[in-house]
């Protein structure tokens, strides 16, 4: 079995531009009004001026435990041995939508034909493509770079074998991933606290960008893990 591929996302580098959604659509020749395989959601909270907003880009995470595959009645969904990519065989799909119920990320989409389609890590082009293809190769070995990754303006999304993604992640994010954050389905960087400088006037050194300081914050964050992680 080959090494599992996965996604990495850094909300700190995501500028919320939706280039990933559009490039995915164009790569796979999908209509503008079709549901997105990769979505960008803008989360916000607070009242002006105490307002915050964070963009989050998501697609199918090619979960190691693929809940969608487990529930698919006709075995149309395959969690591939060779690279962990989760593909769909639309010649078997009955369009029951059960995978969408089971998927924690709302990744499966359905077109007018009612058949499931979703991100295939750009293993092919178009709905249902990639199924039955040889193992995913890294771009340096001639494989196609996922279009969304290739066009992420903020370089906020990455895709690759798990070990590589862990290596690329910050210490905190990698450690959280190890500890089962997000069910170890995806690596997400914690939001760097770019706290207003003036709120801590005497100790401005406290406001360091914690992306560079993963080690010091790890312990503290891990104790929070149970509370805020879900899915």
């Amino acid at each position, binding site marked *: 079995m080959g090494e599992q591929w996965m996604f990495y996302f850094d909300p*700190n580098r995501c*500028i*919320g*531009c*939706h*280039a990933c*959604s*559009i*490039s995915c*659509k*164009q*790569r796979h*020749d999908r209509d*503008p*009004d079709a549901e997105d395989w990769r*979505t*960008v959601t*803008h989360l*916000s909270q607070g*009242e*002006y*001026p105490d*307002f*915050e*907003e*964070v*963009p989050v880009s998501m697609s199918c995470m090619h979960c190691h435990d693929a809940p969608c595959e487990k529930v698919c009645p006709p075995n149309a969904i395959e969690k591939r041995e060779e690279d962990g990519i989760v593909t769909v065989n639309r010649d078997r799909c009955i369009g029951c939508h059960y995978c969408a119920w089971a998927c924690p990320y709302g990744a499966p989409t359905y077109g007018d034909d009612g058949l499931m389609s979703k991100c295939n890590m*750009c*293993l*092919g*082009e*178009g709905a249902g*493509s*990639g199924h039955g*293809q*040889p*193992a*995913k*190769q890294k771009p340096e070995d*001639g*494989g*196609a770079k996922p*279009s969304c990754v*290739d*066009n*992420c*303006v*903020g*370089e906020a999304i990455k895709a690759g074998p798990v070990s590589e993604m862990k290596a690329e992640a910050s210490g905190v994010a990698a450690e959280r991933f190890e500890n089962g954050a997000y069910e170890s389905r995806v690596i997400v960087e914690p939001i760097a606290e*770019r*706290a*207003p*400088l*003036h709120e801590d*006037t005497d100790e401005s050194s406290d*406001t*360091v*960008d914690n*992306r*560079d300081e993963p080690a010091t914050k790890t312990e503290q964050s891990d104790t929070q893990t149970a509370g805020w992680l879900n899915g």
Partner: protein
Amino acid sequence: MSKNEAGEVALSRRSLLKVSGAAVGAMSLGGCLGVLDDETDRDLDRLGDADVAYGNCWMCHHACGQEVAVNDGTIVDITGVDGHPRGSAGPGREGTLCPKGLAEMEKAHDPDRITQPYIREDGELRQADWDEAFEYAATRLKALDEQYGAETFLNAASWATTNLHGIVWGNLYGTPERIGRGRHVCFGGAHLSGNLMGVGTHMRFVDYQNADYIIAWGRNLFESFAGQWEPKGVLEALDNGAKLVVVDPQHTPTAQKADEWLPIEPRTDGALALAMGHVIVEENLYDEAFVEEWTYGFERYREEVADKTPEWASERTGLEPGVIRQIAVEFAEAAPAAGIALWTGVGQYAESQKASQAVFALNGLVGNIDRPGGLRFWRGPPFSNPFEVRDIDLPNNAAGKTPALRKYEEYEKYPFRHTTGIGHNQIPEMVENGHIRGMYCHYDNPLTDGNTQAWLEALEEMELIITVDAYWNELTRHADVVFPEAIQLEKDTLIDYAPAWSAYHENRWVSASKAAVEPQGNTKPGFDILKGIAEAMGWGEYIPWESEAAYNEDMLANIDYSFEEVAQENYVILDEFGYEQWKDSGFSTATGRFQFYLDEEGGYRRSIEELDEQVPDVDLHTGPQWVPPGTFGDTPDGEYPLHFYDTRAVFFAFGADQVLDHPREQYARKHGLASEEYEGNYLVMNTADADERGIETGDMVTVATEKGDGEVMAYVSERTPPGFVTAEFGFGQGNSKEDGMNTMIVHDGQTDPISSQVDRHIAAEVRKTGGD
């Protein structure tokens, strides 16, 4: 400039292509470098046997490198070019395309484009062939010249990939009337301040990667960027520990990433800047050596800011005095590796020249000019003048003709006539007065830019309108000749439009591409259109180049790369240029120094003197000074209590591309309104303003001003302050995307009296109109 040097700095792309040299050599139109070989891991579908070609994105005209896959004449995939100076974070870095750049693929095959020349016959536009259209245009141009004089014809060419329009309309046809986007509708106030003070238009782009401190002052760097090198560069800086401060009334995507967001009262930037200057001077944090040796007017500036305390500014800006003090200190301490990026936020209001002057003064104060991490004096490639290369003796038929603004006494009421030749908002009046009778519009729609109702009437009155465009709208439908232009991916282009600022902060560079696909339908590149007009006018001898590529070849005479070579590599990195260039050449101002005071600039001084007489409340002088909002332009009042302002979205370039489906769909999805039938822009308003008026997201609302009203869908959000409502421009009547509201339909010609810049802060009221 030299190939050897360039060879050393040329990075990944170049060496990559050298390896696969054979394939490159064989590359012709559309290229023939297979994207994928047989060893691929993928389902070979449309991309399977596609060829690779390059482009330089022209969606927002900032030229990020594009790599397209072409299958049987159709573009089937599009992506960025790694290491591209505009589209990547620098050497060896991932090249990408923003949503607009990606959408050029859709535009290439958009069936709604104009694909045939049209001419007006018996009052109606009808299809014509090219020769007929050229002949027709020439006949009409000659008639206009004979009857009224060529000086009544306005050259309103915008985003051309060639400078030929200046030659054709200025040198040959002989009109002095020229309106440019950047100067008159973009950031006129700040443009003027920058030029006169000595930082030029460089004040928009910081030397991001080297900066420790970046102030995005009324700049939305993560949404409205001039090439993706900007957001990428800022992200790099943040990763390296730089601080980002955002001065903006709205919580923008840039504010999302900021260490400090200063939610300033609109139009009070001058107060903030003066107070920062006060702190920096008072605490002796300024660059004494630089100020002493390289600036002009400092003593008067010091006096001016003496009483502008943070407390004083706090009352005007709504910001905490402590914050103002702290930002000032941090900025000065980080300098010279501290830069202010400023563009339209402090460039598009009635007091914007004065406000921006106060901001730019800070650059002179801390000496961050053309020093690493501060403002950068970018340098473009050393292009040659093709006319000189070919020894063509060009006449200058516009010489000696005075633009109407300066010629006729009707315009003496406009102080800006001493600083500029024309103003966007005043053109309808000039049309009415018979001083402008015709216009050449290229990639430009004045109906989006300001004073729209007056402009609609002016279009009716003009005798001759020639447009080079791609879509139907009220401009093109009003034209007498419509020339359909090929898009950038359909033509050979050498990027000569401000090809300076980029992720390569120390190198010049040049970028070019050959047509990736055939022009759609019967369209032609702008170069060919101008050449066609010129030939029909009998000026063929002056334009001997058979194509844009040949013209470009001559532009490269002084650079050791041929057009073909640059196009094959998409971009080439040229020689290095150092910092502190003013040490060699001085500042390009009247005094040769950075100028706090502009009394040596004659035109400016005269403008101020005239304006001073018109406004008794404020004692105007030529230095940085506080001009309260409403001194010129609108102020919200009882009847129109809201500030109405228009914005940009990362999905659209100006008013040009709103018709494309992919970006528009994502724009709607971002607002959660994709399921609505409505396809226009959204009026963003704060919950407090919305509640007061019983408005909810998705309601149709009417924006009313003294001038008139428009209808738009509401989007209620806390990202905008109470009292400040905004809508994306480029929609509604007059635009190609007619759904939604043209924000300028309620504009009454408000103008910055010093620079002629369109003032976009309008007093308005909003009410629910029913609907969904």
